[in-house]
């Protein structure tokens, strides 16, 4: 991120001229040590998240006991619930927070983090909307019903897909950031609605996390909470990679701009 400030126009530090055999973009040393440290942290996060997700997979498929009524199909729940949690918990909440932060600080870095988080949130919501019906077919006898939980989750998916479409249709810059920020804040209204749909309306969707009698065996609960942690780590890693990639895309754009000025 420090490189944003050091990539400058010709004639000043970081002139773009060839200096001593290296390209003087003012990028060479600015923040390099910090960048290396950040890379190490991101790579470590990647290794940890892969190990955690694989351990969660082992727990879900092998270690967790077989559910008495639903049988093995119930094991989808160990991936379905964490996916929903990542989408509606860290991912879209990060979008909401960064949208507010952008409107307050007018710093485009918050806009980029919001966009990255929305992309990951949409991906995990898609996983939720696909694994849920696959579970539902043998249990409810139908892939889909217009149940409040399912319907509000589908609406949530449409909202954030629209957020991403809005961004891709608008040229980058503060105008896009402003539009996206407002959209991201308003769109977040659906997240508590999804969460509370089970309480507010009649629904056949199980309430495992907050229901008084979730019917979960302690070992099932342990696997579920471990999977929740593993998926959260995975989200953090994907977000870090995606934001770093955005930084690279920005540098490419600025290099192109510099070249056009010649």
């Amino acid at each position, binding site marked *: 991120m420090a490189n944003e400030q050091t990539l400058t126009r010709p004639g000043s530090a970081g002139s773009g001229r060839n200096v001593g055999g290296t390209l003087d973009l003012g990028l060479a040393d600015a923040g390099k040590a910090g960048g290396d440290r950040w890379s190490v942290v991101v790579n470590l996060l990647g290794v940890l998240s892969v190990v955690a997700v694989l351990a969660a997979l082992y727990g879900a498929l092998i270690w967790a006991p077989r559910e008495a009524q639903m049988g093995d199909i119930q094991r989808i729940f160990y*991936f379905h619930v964490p996916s929903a949690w990542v989408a509606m918990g860290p991912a879209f909440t990060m979008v909401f927070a960064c949208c507010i932060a952008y409107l307050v600080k007018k710093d485009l870095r918050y806009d980029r983090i919001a966009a990255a988080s929305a992309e990951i949130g949409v991906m995990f919501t898609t996983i939720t909307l696909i694994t849920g019906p696959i579970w539902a077919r043998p249990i409810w006898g139908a892939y889909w019903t217009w149940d409040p939980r399912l319907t509000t989750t589908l609406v949530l998916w449409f909202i954030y897909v629209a957020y991403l479409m809005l961004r891709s249709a608008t040229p980058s810059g503060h105008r896009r950031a402003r539009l996206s920020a407002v959209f991201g804040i308003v769109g977040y209204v659906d997240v508590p609605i999804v969460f509370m749909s089970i309480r507010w309306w009649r629904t056949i969707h199980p309430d495992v996390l907050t229901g008084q009698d979730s019917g979960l065996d302690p070992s099932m609960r342990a696997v579920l909470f471990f999977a929740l942690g593993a998926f959260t780590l995975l989200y953090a890693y*994907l977000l870090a990679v995606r934001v770093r990639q955005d930084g*690279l895309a920005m540098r490419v754009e600025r290099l192109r701009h510099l*070249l056009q000025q010649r």
Partner: protein
Amino acid sequence: MDGIGFLFAGFAAFWLLLGGYVVTLGWRQVGLKRQMERLERELSRVGES
């Protein structure tokens, strides 16, 4: 399709979506790095001339 079949379908869907997203990220990264190297080379050439 019995319970195991649906379970397999669910996990396959999960890994396909997650894997697809990771592959897309990797593809984008490779593309950006190549663009960056090409632009740096061109700027260097323009800088020399």
